[in-house]
C-alpha cells in the first residue's frame, strides 16, 4: 500500500526546476558566454591587480601625511563643489516636478504630453552628466555654472522619472474624493497626490543631492568648476600629499551629505 502511494507521489511530484525550451536554453547559454567574454573585453586581470598593489602602497606612502599647505583654497573649492551640487539639485527638483506630473500615467489624461515628458526625462537621464558638463562648458564657458547646469539636467532625469513613478503608485482614492467635490484636476494633484507621494519625493531628492555631490567632484575634470580640477592638477604635478588632502576632504563632504540625508529622511518622513 505504502509502495503504491510512494510511486503515485513520485509520478505527481513537481520537478525542482521548470523545464525550459531549447531556444530559452540557447539564449541563457549565449548570455552566460557574453558575460564571460566581457571579463576579457574589460581587461580584467588578477595578475595586474596583484602587481598594482605595490604601486598603490607606494602612492599611499608618498601621499601620507596629507598636505595642509593649501587647506583654505581647497576648502573653498570643496565649498564651491557643494554649492554647485546644492543649487543644481534644487533647480533640477523644481523643474522635474512639472515633467513628472505630465509623465505620470493617468494623472493628466494627455497621452501626447505623457510621451513628450517621458522622452525628455529619458534623454536627460541616459546621457551621462560628464557629457552634459562638456556640452555646457562649450555653451556657457568654463567654471561652476557649467557644472551646476550639468547637475541640474542630470537631476531632472533622475527625479523626473522617480517622482512620476511615486505619483503613479499612490492611493488614488483621496484625489478622486477631491474630484468629487468639484476640484480641478490640478488642485487634486497638488492637494492629494503630491502630499501622498511626499515621502518618496524627499527620499529621491536626498539621493539626488548625494549623487550630485559625488558628480560635482568629477565635473571639475572637464573644467566645469569644483574641486575636481584641483585634484587633477595635484595628480598631474605628482603633488600626492595635496591630492590626498583633497581626497580626504571629498570623502568628508560626501559622508557628511549622506549622513545629513539619512537624518533628514528620518526627521521629515517619520515626522
Amino acid at each position, binding site marked *: 500500500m505504502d509502495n503504491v502511494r510512494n510511486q503515485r507521489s513520485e509520478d505527481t511530484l513537481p520537478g525542482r526546476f521548470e523545464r525550459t525550451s531549447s531556444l530559452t536554453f540557447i539564449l541563457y547559454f549565449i548570455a552566460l558566454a557574453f558575460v564571460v567574454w566581457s571579463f576579457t573585453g574589460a581587461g580584467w586581470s588578477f595578475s595586474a591587480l596583484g602587481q598594482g598593489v605595490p604601486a598603490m602602497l607606494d602612492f599611499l606612502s608618498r601621499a601620507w601625511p596629507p598636505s595642509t599647505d593649501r587647506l583654505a583654497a581647497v576648502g573653498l573649492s570643496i565649498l564651491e563643489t557643494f554649492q554647485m551640487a546644492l543649487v543644481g539639485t534644487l533647480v533640477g527638483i523644481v523643474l522635474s516636478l512639472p515633467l513628472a506630473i505630465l509623465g505620470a500615467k493617468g494623472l493628466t489624461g494627455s497621452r501626447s504630453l505623457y510621451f513628450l515628458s517621458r522622452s525628455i526625462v529619458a534623454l536627460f537621464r541616459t546621457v551621462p552628466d560628464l557629457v552634459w558638463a562638456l556640452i555646457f562648458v562649450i555653451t556657457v564657458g568654463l567654471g561652476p555654472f557649467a557644472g551646476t547646469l550639468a547637475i541640474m539636467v542630470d537631476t531632472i532625469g533622475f527625479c523626473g522619472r522617480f517622482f512620476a513613478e511615486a505619483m503613479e503608485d499612490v*492611493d488614488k482614492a*483621496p484625489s*478622486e*474624493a477631491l474630484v468629487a*467635490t*468639484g*476640484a480641478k484636476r490640478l488642485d487634486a494633484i497638488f492637494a492629494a497626490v503630491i502630499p501622498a507621494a511626499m515621502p518618496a519625493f524627499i527620499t529621491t531628492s536626498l539621493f539626488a543631492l548625494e549623487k550630485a555631490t559625488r558628480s560635482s567632484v568629477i565635473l571639475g575634470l572637464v573644467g566645469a568648476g569644483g574641486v575636481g580640477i584641483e585634484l587633477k592638477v595635484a595628480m598631474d604635478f605628482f603633488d600626492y600629499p595635496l591630492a590626498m588632502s583633497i581626497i580626504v576632504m571629498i570623502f568628508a563632504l560626501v559622508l557628511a551629505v549622506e549622513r545629513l540625508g539619512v537624518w533628514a529622511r528620518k526627521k521629515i518622513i517619520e515626522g
Partner: protein
Amino acid sequence: MSQVGSEAGQGSPMSIEQRHIVLQVQGLSKRFADKTVLEDITFDIRQGESVALIGSNGVGKSTALYCCLRLIEPENGRIQLLDQNLLGVKAKSLRMVRREVGFIFQKHNLVPRACALTNVLHGALGYQSGPRQWLHCLTKSKNRKRAYEMLERVGLNHIALQRADKLSGGQSQRVAIARALMQNPKIIMADEPVASLDPIAGEAIMQLFFSLCKSDGITLLFTSHNIEHALQYSDRVLAIAGGKITLDACSAELDAADLNQQYHYG
C-alpha cells in the same frame, strides 16, 4: 410619505411630494465587461428627503451612487442633478454641479499626510482653486475659520492639526463629513458611510450625519447594508436586485425583518 420639516428658505411646511426634484434618474444602465450591473434604473429624490439605497453585496448600489455624480460613466440613461442634465454637460459644468454635492466614501478617502483642518478645507476646492486652498496655513482667514467651524460641528476641533493618518476610523469619517459640509452642499451622497466602522462608532456617525443633514435641510442619498440604519435614517427606501429597482417605499411602512430576508439573507 412622511413630513420632514419645512423647505429651506420657506416658512410654511410642505409635504415631500410638493418639493422640487433635486435628483432624477431615468433608464440608467451600466455594464462592466460582459456583466450588466444596472439596467433601466429609474427613481427621483426631492429636496430635503433622506433616501436609503439597499441591496445585497455586489448588486450595484455603489455603482448607482457613483453614476449619479458621474464618478463612473453610465452607459445609458438620464441623470438630472440640481437641474442639470449631468450626462450632457462639459467638464466645467460638471464641476459646478459636483461642488454642490457632498460625497462621503466608505473609507473616508482623506489625504493621509494632511491635517484634519486641511482635509476639511479641501471641501471648498470646487469654489476656490489654487495653492492657497491646498493647505490650511496658506488659505484666507475666512476659509480657515469656516473649516474650523465645520470640524467643530462634528466635534473634532480639538484635533484640527492632527494628521489624518493618525485618526481613528470614526474620527476620519467625521472629518470626511466636515469636508462635505464645507462644500455647503444641497445634497449629500454617502456610500456605506459606516461600513468600515464598529457598530457603536457606526451608530454615532449615522446619528451625527443624519442630524447635520436635517438641520441644514440637505437632501441625503445613502447606500447601506444595515437594514435598521436604512429604516431609521431615511424617509424612503429604494432596493436594487438583479440590476433593477425592485422596491421604492416609505421607510415607515417597511419591516426590517422582511427586508433582511428579501435583500440580504433571502
